[in-house]
């Protein structure tokens, strides 16, 4: 039977000869990512099992990123619980708290490669789909099952084929593509589905990661890109491991087929308080902001910081607006430093922070107060997500966020580029 990418990778990881959508199957997991959830809930569930081992300490990627450095005593205690667990079970890939955000660091270190099946204790684990592998978020109990057995149950998903044609115009980024898609199909439009992206050649790896990252905002289980030379070059620079690129069969069956002409996409904004509340920028231009935030696993990559620096160079941010920039990883931070981007940011009046999830989860380093308005490059604008329940968050691309910081109001980046 002809297969989609998701069906091929799931079949490869099961002990079955054939699978089809809707079927419950058990799969072998290649890698599991865990962060502070380890100290939050996972360790409590795992201890119930009464075993003194994990199935394979070499297949666990552990990092602290949500609340680093610890802003509160309770966060510090959570980190203590995490470290104690990692030590007790001899985790080999313990990344500590200085490397950056999980979904940036794991690919940078070559851990996500074509054909793999990866799970993680975070909904944005879908990010690794940019690397032609299947990856998805799971809860603490599922993590415990994987820690104990290396296996997990899956329902084989139906797939949507999304094909991109032509190229993006200046000032438009992959964030605008995914906000447009979520707006079109709604936040429940892809529940339990695998989104398979075709026509990807014009998109950068950073840009693909942004799209895969946010497929979960439409409810999707996977957001998997096909493979191309650009991807293989990227992987070969970062990993010596072997991998198999996965292409769908020509006759693969898709529940839906969508096509997007990238040249027709314009800057998009998701209005409060849902990532699916999409609007073209013309509808929100001029809304005054208190804060702009550039960072997170969605849009804190070097491509994002470069466009921000290009826009900001020689300019200052609006004096009544705060602009917070959080590079997604130490590698991104160092690259930005070497390229002189940090100078541009700091001289323009922005605050550059250590790499952390920080403001994106309303954790620290830029929490919003009552009634404040923020334009943010992050992935969720739920009520209270970035701070006070009465604050309002508009999601947008790094270009739109930076341009808005200069003017103190939501502004179309095409006006300055």
């Amino acid at each position, binding site marked *: 039977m002809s297969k989609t990418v998701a069906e091929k990778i799931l079949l490869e990881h099961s002990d079955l000869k054939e699978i089809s959508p809707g079927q419950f199957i058990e799969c072998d997991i290649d890698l599991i990512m865990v962060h502070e959830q380890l100290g939050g809930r996972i360790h409590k569930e795992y201890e119930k099992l009464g075993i003194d081992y994990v199935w394979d300490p070499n297949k666990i990627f552990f990092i602290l990123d949500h609340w680093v450095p610890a802003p509160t005593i309770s966060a510090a205690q959570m980190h203590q619980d995490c470290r104690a667990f990692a030590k007790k079970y001899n985790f080999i890939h313990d990344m500590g708290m200085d490397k950056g955000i999980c979904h940036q660091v794991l690919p940078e270190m070559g851990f996500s490669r074509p054909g793999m099946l990866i799970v993680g204790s975070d909904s944005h684990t879908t990010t690794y789909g940019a690397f032609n592998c299947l990856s*998805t978020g799971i809860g603490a109990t599922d993590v415990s099952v994987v820690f104990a057995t290396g296996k997990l149950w899956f329902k084989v998903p139906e797939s949507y084929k999304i094909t991109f044609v032509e190229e993006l115009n200046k000032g438009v980024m992959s964030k605008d593509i995914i906000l447009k898609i979520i707006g079109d199909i709604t936040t429940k439009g892809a529940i339990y589905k695998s989104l398979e992206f075709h026509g990807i050649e014009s998109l950068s790896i950073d840009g693909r990661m942004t799209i895969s990252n946010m497929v979960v905002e439409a409810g999707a289980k996977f957001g998997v890109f096909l493979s191309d030379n650009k991807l293989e070059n990227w992987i070969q620079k970062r990993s010596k491991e072997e991998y198999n690129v996965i292409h769908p069969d020509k006759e693969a069956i898709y529940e839906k087929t969508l096509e997007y002409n990238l040249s027709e996409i314009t800057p998009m904004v998701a209005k409060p308080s849902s990532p699916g509340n999409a609007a073209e920028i013309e509808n929100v231009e001029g809304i005054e902001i208190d804060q702009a935030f550039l960072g997170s696993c969605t849009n804190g990559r070097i491509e994002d910081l470069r466009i921000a620096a290009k826009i900001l160079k020689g300019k200052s941010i609006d004096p009544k607006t705060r602009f917070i920039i959080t590079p997604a990883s130490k590698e991104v931070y160092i690259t930005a430093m070497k390229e002189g981007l940090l100078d541009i940011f700091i001289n323009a009046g922005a605050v550059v922070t250590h790499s952390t999830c920080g403001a994106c989860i309303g954790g620290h380093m830029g929490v919003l107060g009552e009634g404040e308005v923020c334009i943010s490059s992050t992935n*969720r604008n739920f009520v209270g997500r970035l701070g006070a329940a009465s604050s309002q968050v508009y999601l947008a691309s790094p270009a739109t966020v930076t341009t808005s910081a200069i003017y103190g109001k939501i502004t179309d980046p095409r006006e300055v580029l």
Partner: protein
Amino acid sequence: MDAINGFAYILGDDINTDDIVPSHTLTMRDPHEMAKCTLEFIDPQFVKKIDKGNIIIAGENFGTGSSREEAVNVFKILGVKAIIAKSFARIYFRNLINVGIPGITLTWDENTFSKGDNLVISLYKGVIFNKTKNIKVEFAKLPEFLTNILNEGGIINQLKKMLLK
């Protein structure tokens, strides 16, 4: 796990995990402290109004957002027996089953359920009897694979038995 008896508590569409457990609660070490904050942004009185034995009736895309299992665990602590929704977010649905709370997908309206209705759910038969309204509603039964997990009281219990073998 059959004949779940409880009272309907109605919630709306797109209740997300940040609504259920706001991120400022996530570093709390005591899950019972966290449970006191459940849905505080949506309804600050929620924890006072929810009674043990309630069955939550929700709209579309219940539990959308984060993988944080705390968003299921707080309902368990508060004594919620089952959640019926028009649709569930994927991770949330897994988390529900894994911790042993039945998640039932069902399209409903105000003629089907109202606040406080006394409901009896049979997972095996795929039927909800609304005693207050004296009506029976059928739903798509959960696959045996999932009811087996629920019967064990969650996947950790099931796994424990398997590891002992």
